[in-house]
């Protein structure tokens, strides 16, 4: 290896700092630069900083983000979140490995071009299964599309088209604005190209409207979305917009200012009519628009948007627009009255409970931090949204960063903190970017920093990025991570409210909790408490995904039923399949069977049936989903994410997974179900932290409601046809001998026999499902 240039290390240390807590930010910078963590660089860090060799070794080996071997030029990240899992993420990963000719245990191809990695969840669940390469996301993949994705990405890299930046033009008066949702998942669906097209069309035609980047509206299943909002008259929402549709859409609503151009358009229109005899300048697929809008109404109408009220409406980083939409009104009010007790009283009487999962009453938590001894206190916004199948926090951070900052500032004022941190997972680069940008703007404009608005109240906020560890969503592990240690939880008490960050009293709330605070202060606790139920006040945001017609981000009053969400908002299960269950709460939650769909979505009622409210992931499952496989999927996740500290978390989850692996592969031993059940209960009772205590929930709830499926597996059958070792692919006599299956089979398990019925060699077959997907006559079946 050529000598490493270590001057970069010195530069990074000079920028980031030399305290023990700088270790993760330093490692992140080094990894960005060197594409891995070279040992000489780590040694140099220890020479320059207070970071010890033991600390840097322990930390760099704990977080999955850090690599000790060079990574390929491009990282092909396969999302293996819940929604992606049930839609075939593993097949996508296999396809990438096959295409790149990766050997067993290898993740980088021989040219060092691509590294294939799995990621717990990229939070784009409605695109499942999806992958992300660099900043580009590809959704709705199949095994067969993977080679094209790799080619497409390289082609894009080569052509690297420069997106035109909008030239700010002084306008006296606008007829309206054109909003394009630009959340991560919207971009993955091509919204960025649509936005570029809007800018082009507006400029080329000199239309009297402005293009506006807005956050995600949550209508993920219909993206890209374009909304035309005229100053006068009703706004109009277009779904599934392609860049080539943009001109026609915009010309419908706005008149070109240039007379010649206007004439040109009219003339062309007239000519079209004359020559073709049609009176239709709209692209054909826009006809579906009316019904789409109806569909969007069905999706949006039952929702009550409090924390997401501005999502999809305002430009996320435009402070002025935020201010125009009542932004910072709540903070200003709190600063003016400067009455922390009153703020806490309002939050308490609103009945707000923590939205991160545990549902602890927010007002009480604030009170405890306020009462804790000492002068120095911290606030932390927990944006380490790691549950596969959940993307509420990402969407809120990306769409309304100022709102979260405002909520956090109010909390800091209430508890007496002068410094705070956003802890955001590194898998959410856009969220990190937008929060950083918003913080900069706030500091410039006096909404953060010393003596805010002359009130005497000062607050410094900064961002710490996670480094790939689900367990850091646990508050004590999160604190350890900010302090620059391995993200290992410790026993509570002491709670962070008494002794948290650097052993000072610390308030940790989830993104959504903070995002609700300004609304509560502005509208009053009673207005908030008017939503929801006796014990669950207000609204809750859910990420609805899986086998549902309309997936996306929804906000509903606590207490609506599961059925209401799945059927009314989600439009029911797709593809003529039967609604089987909903997985609520991710790896800490449970599977609620369709029979119990009338259960209200509320803390205690869900707990009673073995699920949890959790952070808000909701994945709908149909009859093609194997519940044992689902339980195993979550166990594999928690087992992989366990910090490794306590016996139950470290070994217990592994042993539960061992048993599930045996059951799913037809190797179950007698007594395995009972052993699994007993071990699950003990892991619940004995684990040190919440990750371990809740890890068995997916098993316990599926054992409770779908025990017959477990028993079938023990007898060697997978009723849903999912578990590879228990199924066989076969071809029936509908086969027309078209050879498509044989051509697509990645392992040549199907001999090419034109015009004859094909036969699958089961010894070679890897159960990748490709043949079944490509067969034009549905002749491939699973036995």
């Amino acid at each position: 290896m050529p000598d490493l240039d270590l001057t970069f290390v010195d530069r990074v240390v000079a920028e980031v700092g030399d305290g023990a807590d700088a270790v993760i930010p330093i490692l992140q910078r080094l990894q960005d630069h060197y594409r891995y963590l070279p040992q000489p660089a780590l040694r140099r860090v220890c020479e320059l900083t207070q970071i010890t060799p033991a600390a840097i070794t322990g930390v760099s080996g704990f977080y999955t983000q850090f690599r000790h071997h060079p990574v390929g030029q491009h990282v092909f990240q396969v999302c293996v979140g819940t929604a992606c899992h049930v839609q075939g993420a593993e097949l996508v990963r296999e396809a990438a490995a096959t295409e790149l000719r990766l050997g067993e245990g290898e993740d980088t191809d021989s040219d060092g071009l691509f590294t294939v990695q799995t990621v717990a969840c990229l939070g784009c669940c409605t695109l499942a299964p999806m992958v992300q390469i660099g900043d580009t996301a590809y959704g709705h993949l199949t095994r067969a599309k993977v080679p094209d994705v790799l080619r497409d990405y390289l082609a894009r890299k080569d052509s690297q088209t420069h997106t035109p930046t909008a030239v700010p033009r002084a306008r006296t008066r606008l007829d309206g604005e054109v909003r394009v949702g630009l959340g991560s998942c919207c971009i993955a669906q091509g919204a960025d190209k649509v936005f570029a097209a809007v800018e082009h069309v507006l400029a080329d035609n000199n239309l009297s409207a402005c293009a506006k980047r807005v956050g995600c509206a949550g209508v993920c299943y219909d993206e890209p979305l374009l909304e035309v909002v005229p100053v006068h008259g009703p706004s109009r929402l277009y779904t599934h917009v392609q860049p080539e549709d943009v001109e026609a859409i915009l010309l419908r609503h706005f008149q070109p200012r240039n007379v010649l151009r206007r004439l040109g358009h009219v003339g062309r229109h007239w000519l079209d009519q004359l020559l073709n005899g049609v009176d239709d300048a709209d692209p054909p697929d826009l006809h579906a628009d009316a019904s789409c809008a109806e569909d969007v109404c069905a999706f949006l109408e039952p929702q009550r948007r409090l924390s997401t009220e501005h999502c999809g409406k305002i430009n996320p980083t435009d402070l002025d627009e935020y201010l125009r939409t009542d932004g910072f009104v709540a903070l200003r009010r709190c600063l003016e009255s400067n009455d922390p007790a009153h703020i806490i009283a309002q939050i308490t009487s609103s009945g707000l409970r923590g939205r991160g999962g545990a549902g602890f009453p927010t007002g009480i938590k604030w009170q405890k931090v306020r009462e804790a001894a000492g002068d120095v206190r911290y606030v932390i916004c927990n944006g380490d949204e790691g549950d596969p199948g959940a993307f509420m926090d990402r969407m809120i951070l990306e769409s309304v960063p100022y709102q979260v900052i405002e909520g956090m500032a109010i909390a800091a004022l209430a508890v007496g903190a002068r410094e705070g941190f956003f802890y955001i997972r590194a898998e959410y680069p856009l969220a990190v970017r937008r929060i950083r940008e918003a913080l900069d703007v706030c500091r410039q404009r006096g909404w953060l920093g010393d003596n805010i608005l002359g009130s005497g109240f000062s607050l410094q906020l900064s961002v710490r990025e996670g480094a790939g560890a689900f367990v850091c969503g646990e508050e004590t592990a999160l604190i350890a991570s900010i302090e620059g240690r391995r993200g290992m939880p410790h026993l509570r008490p002491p709670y962070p409210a008494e002794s948290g960050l650097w052993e000072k009293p610390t308030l940790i709330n989830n993104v959504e909790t903070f995002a609700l605070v300004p609304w509560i202060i502005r509208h009053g606790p009673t207005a908030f408490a008017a939503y929801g139920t006796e014990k669950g006040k207000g609204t809750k945001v859910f990420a609805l995904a899986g086998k549902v017609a309309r997936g996306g981000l929804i906000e509903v009053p606590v207490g609506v039923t599961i059925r209401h969400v799945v059927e009314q908002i989600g439009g029911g299960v797709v593809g003529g399949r039967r609604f089987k269950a909903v997985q609520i709460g991710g790896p800490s939650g449970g599977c609620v069977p369709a029979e119990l769909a009338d259960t209200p979505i509320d803390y205690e009622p869900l707990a009673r049936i073995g699920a949890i409210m959790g952070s808000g992931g909701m994945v709908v499952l149909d009859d093609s989903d194997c519940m044992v496989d689902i339980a195993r999927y979550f166990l594999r996740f928690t087992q992989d994410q366990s910090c490794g500290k306590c016996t139950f978390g470290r070994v217990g989850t592994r042993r539960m997974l061992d048993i599930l692996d045996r059951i799913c592969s037809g190797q179950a031993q007698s007594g395995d179900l009972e052993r699994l059940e007993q071990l699950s209960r003990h892991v619940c009772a004995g684990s040190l932290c919440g990750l371990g205590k809740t890890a068995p929930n997916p098993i316990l709830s599926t054992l409770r409601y779908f025990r017959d499926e477990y028993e079938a597996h023990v007898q060697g059958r997978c009723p849903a046809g999912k578990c590879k070792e228990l199924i066989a692919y076969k071809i029936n006599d509908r086969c027309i001998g078209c050879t498509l299956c044989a051509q697509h089979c990645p392992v040549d398990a199907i001999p090419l026999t034109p015009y004859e019925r094909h036969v699958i060699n089961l010894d070679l077959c890897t159960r990748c499902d490709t043949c079944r997907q490509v067969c034009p006559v549905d002749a491939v079946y699973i036995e």
Partner: protein
Amino acid sequence: MVTMTIDGQPIQVPVGSTVLQAARALGIDVPTICYLEGYQASTSCLACLVKLEGTDRAVPACGTPAADGMRVSSETLDVHDLRRTALELILSDHVGDCIAPCVFACPAHMDAPQMLREIRSDDLRQAIATVKEDIALPAILGRVCPKPCEKGCRRQGADGPVEICDLKRYVADRDLASGDPYQPECKPDTGRRVAVIGSGPAGLAAAFHLRRDGHAVTVYEAREQPGGRLQADYSTDILPHETLEAEVGVIFRLGAELRTGTRIGQHVKFDDLRAQYDAVLVACGVVDRDEVRSWGLTVGARGIESRVGTYQTNVEGVFVAGTAMRGKGLVVRSVADGKEATEVISQYLAGQTIKPVQRAFSSRMGKIQADEMPEFLSRAADLPRVDATRDVVGEFQAREATDQAHRCMSCDCVAHGNCRLEHYAALYGADPAKYQDGRRAFAVVNRAGSVQYEPGKCINCELCIQVAARAKDALGLTFVGRGFDVRIGVPFNRTIDEGVGSLAAECVAVCPTGALYFSTPRLVQLGTPQNRR
């Protein structure tokens, strides 16, 4: 002071105490493995779980502060189940044998690795003491035993097992030849009297162990000479009279009385025996069914019936051992029976509830893989096996014996008998196999260095990390990896010695499971030249 209750018992402890300290103040033995007084509690092994009454919460006693009004339950079935599961989970990922496989292969469970260590350090007096803990007749067994221990020896899978049996004979022969044969210390007289019927291997072994336990023993032998089947079944070529006499003589010098030519039922009535003694052990070899039935004993297909594991017959105070019970069996089995029956008889005589004799607790590594063998072999001398009976005409010379003892790979654990995991696993009846599903590979880190580390035995207690962090002259230790794979590592791939520096001894001392230990000095110049290949 803080007042709380544990299992309903009130206790006052100073503010700042933990629940564990409160429990210990009450004399409750809450198991702890990762916790060590004087070090920061890592709350990781969770063997010390207690339940907070009125809630569903279980918390580690070691890290939970005692609080006023706290009500904790500790010694309940519920809590014990949880603790047992914690122990079983740790054991399911524990790569090591507390007790070596050869010890389990021996019916008498003689501690062969210990004996071999003592031979290696030329401490034959200690070696015979080790042997006689379990085997009362080593010189005899050294000549007649088919050596099941060697079948269990792990080196069998490489270049042949260690000569355990012949080395035991070597130890015993040297002892007898010393002119001052080893006499174990006997406990003070209990005042209890036991009659042993038969002076075969079972009866002799029982007499030896009963004397050690402090009981008065009378051995009744129908023939004129003691020895039973040892007299009858072996030619003097195999078992010379002198050896038999010498070893039997040692036993009776311990104070047992021998009455030869006395046949029970003929010279002494069985019922009279029962009346004169506090307990009777029937060890008379193959039984005359009708006769023992007439004594009131139940006879089955093999011999006199007994309750499983307790050597108790259907008649109060009458026990049975050896061939009388089994119908047939190895001599070493009978010797083992004599020892185990004594355990039970001593309990009976002390008026205790009789517990069946149980196999000692041990974590088991099981079969090793071919690629693990070199790791094992590197712990032992690279010398060929020398067969005493074939290669050196019946007897080892001292140097050969030491060399052969050096072939032992020390499969047992350095912490055996001094390991908190082993101790509490045995106490809680934990089943090491309950959750096992494959195991990680056996490995020893820093083999060439001073402090060695076996990741397979590490329970991630963090104690050595805490200690090494204080070493001014060292790199320190840290956890590496995440989740199931977390183990101890040294920064920048340096050696453990560089990680622990001058605090090596403390690191080794705090390790609760023998995962860290000092390497035994390697003897480079091993063996007589002609024995080297």
